[in-house]
């Protein structure tokens, strides 16, 4: 080398955040973890054993582990974007963000779909297609991030791997499908869907919705590339497309998530279904009307709030039914009944907790889509600006040099609500001289209901007088982070080893040995 620098510039200042300690390894574990079910599926195809369920049973916990790490990676990435990128949100529908969500979507569909194969011996081909898709999308996500073929705000590491990587993805995809086609005839379903009102049909619909969302997001992500390739015109597919196309599909998926556990395998009595869901349905209508009127949002926002309220109440109702049965039968106290209920049906109730977590995360998206408030203004010292129920007063700007070579500007803001001061906020702008990289750090007042999120976006260089602030009210955003924690807890419960023999842990009904083998699906 002609020149060897004494020292590097250090980590990119934008990546110096607690979320970035966890985001890369968890994402990596999530991506690589899905290699295990994929490899077992391919091995089962090669050895002609894909018709058996062994590859699914063997890899179930690995799949769940990969899924939960990918989920943690997504939530940590969202938190990092919220704290560092300075645009007041946690999900920008950027290609790299989408590329990470795509395998999560197909992986989630796979997690649910394998239950039908375990329980009913159906969807054998479909499950292999789903794991091939998941693995291919993991490769695609890495391809998008590492090659920079699509313009992204998250392109931190570009390389010249592009063509070779693309060939590898194509080769993997085509050879996997070829293997599947070679074994197609042996993968016959052992049973058939007997009714539209059955858990199998609900799972099929859910799978279709996951694939539809995956396709829409994939299409929106790669379309700029296709447009440039075919017409020579560069275009951007921004958040409005994804919110309009993907949002309603997610809404239907959440409703299905709420009602699917109430469906029985094979056939569900319509009367019993209505009877079970009537209470959550009526309560959710009342609650969402009241809740929606607090925000006075668009009609669609009422619908969105109803969807999550209904799903939440339906899951809560399932817990209440289980606890009530234990209290009545065993005379247990409520907390004991809850613990034993979850302890004895870990897979089912752990799954319900994960569903609750998904509802919480959805709340963050609903708040961002429908109820977000935003304003910007330039304030002289002592001046105030209003947003929602809050008033913010600018008290002054301070400048100093940090020990690590950054120039720091910190504003002092007093936050008022109802004429009373709540707290002081200090939005700041750190400029890392060596890297020539500014980082905007928001001043945030967080509650369960909303965040007041203040960014310092401009200032007078001389005298540090008037400064410009961008202020957001981000309703319900903190439920996203809480949802992330509940998701981990739910998955830990669902995957915790329960002991006993393999036959006892088996998911399939065995009439001759019904008692130990039955484990209701989630």
């Amino acid at each position, binding site marked *: 080398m002609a020149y060897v620098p004494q020292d590097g510039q250090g980590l990119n200042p934008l990546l110096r955040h607690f979320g970035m300690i966890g985001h890369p390894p968890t994402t990596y574990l999530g991506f690589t973890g899905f290699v295990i079910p994929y490899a077992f599926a391919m091995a089962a195809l090669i050895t002609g054993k894909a018709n058996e369920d062994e590859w699914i049973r063997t890899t179930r916990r690995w799949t769940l582990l990969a899924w939960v790490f990918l989920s943690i990676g997504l939530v940590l990435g969202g938190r990092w974007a919220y704290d560092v990128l300075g645009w*007041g949100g946690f999900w920008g529908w950027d290609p790299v963000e989408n590329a990470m969500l795509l395998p999560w979507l197909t992986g989630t569909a796979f997690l649910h779909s394998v239950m039908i194969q375990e329980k009913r011996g159906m969807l054998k081909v479909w499950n292999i297609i789903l794991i091939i898709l998941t693995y291919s999308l993991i490769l695609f996500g890495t391809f998008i991030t590492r090659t920079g073929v699509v*313009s992204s*705000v998250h392109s931190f590491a570009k390389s010249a791997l592009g063509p070779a990587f693309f060939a590898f993805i194509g080769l993997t995809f085509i050879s996997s499908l070829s293997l599947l086609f070679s074994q197609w005839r042996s993968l016959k379903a052992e049973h058939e869907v007997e*009714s539209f009102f059955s858990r199998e049909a609900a799972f099929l619909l859910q799978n279709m919705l996951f694939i539809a969302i995956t396709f829409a997001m994939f299409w929106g992500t790669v379309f700029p590339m296709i447009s440039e390739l075919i017409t020579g015109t560069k275009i951007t597919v921004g958040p409005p497309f994804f919110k309009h196309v993907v949002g309603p599909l997610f809404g239907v998926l959440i409703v299905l998530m709420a009602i699917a556990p109430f469906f029985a395998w094979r056939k569900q009595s319509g009367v019993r279904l209505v009877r079970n869901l009537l209470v959550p349905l009526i309560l959710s209508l009342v609650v969402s009307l009241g809740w929606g009127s607090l925000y006075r949002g668009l009609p669609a926002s009422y619908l969105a709030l109803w969807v999550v309220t209904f799903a939440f109440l339906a899951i809560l109702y399932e817990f209440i039914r289980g606890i009530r049965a234990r209290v009545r039968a065993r005379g247990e106290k409520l907390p004991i009944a809850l613990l034993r209920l979850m302890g004895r*049906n870990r897979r089912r109730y752990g799954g319900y907790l994960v569903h609750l977590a998904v509802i919480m995360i959805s709340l963050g998206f609903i708040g961002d889509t429908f109820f977000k408030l935003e*304003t910007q203004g330039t304030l002289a010292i002592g001046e105030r600006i209003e947003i929602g129920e809050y008033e913010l007063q600018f008290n002054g700007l301070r400048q100093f040099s940090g020990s690590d070579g950054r120039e720091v500007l910190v504003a002092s803001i007093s936050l008022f609500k109802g004429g009373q001061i709540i707290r002081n906020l200090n939005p700041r702008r750190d400029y890392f001289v060596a890297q020539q990289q500014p980082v905007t750090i928001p001043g945030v007042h967080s509650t369960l209901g909303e965040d007041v999120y203040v960014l310092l976006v401009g200032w007078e260089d001389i005298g540090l007088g008037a400064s410009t602030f961008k202020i957001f009210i981000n309703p319900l955003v903190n439920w996203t982070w809480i949802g992330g924690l509940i998701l981990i807890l739910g998955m830990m419960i669902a995957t915790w080893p329960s002991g006993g023999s393999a036959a006892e842990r088996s998911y399939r009904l065995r*009439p001759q040995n*019904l008692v130990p083998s*039955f484990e209701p699906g989630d």
Partner: protein
Amino acid sequence: MNIRILLMCTLIIPTLFAPSAVHAQEGEEKFPTDNDVNAIAGKLYCPVCPNTPLDVCETKACQDWRAQIKQQLEDGWTEDQIIDYFVLQYGERVLANPKREGFTSLVWVLPVIAVVLGMTVIWRVIKGWWGFKKPSGSESNIEPGFDEESLARIERELDEMR
């Protein structure tokens, strides 16, 4: 007579409210405000930065483009005129919301077609299974006629007896 009174009222009544109207205007910020600029900038992407909306972009170039939008608003340009200007200058890639015409309309249309196709496939698959292949008699021997609730209850009770 009545017409005269009506005419007088229409002339006098607005003048009673005029001072408050003026006061209200004085209390408001001068057009265009930062929010007016951001409302338009939010519909545009920075033409040179990697996938960054213009209203939140921190580069000097984006600050200049926002200043340009402010100037255009001061000059009386409409939102559509400003957006058209940016598209003309920098191409379609500045639009956050892709156009619904020509080749670009495919981005909107294909997901809808995919959903409709998916629903049709599911419908046909279930209907095919349901309508033409009745469950075999032996299957009733595989799973007894308990519903899931009963099975769950039996399992719970037996679990408790262990």
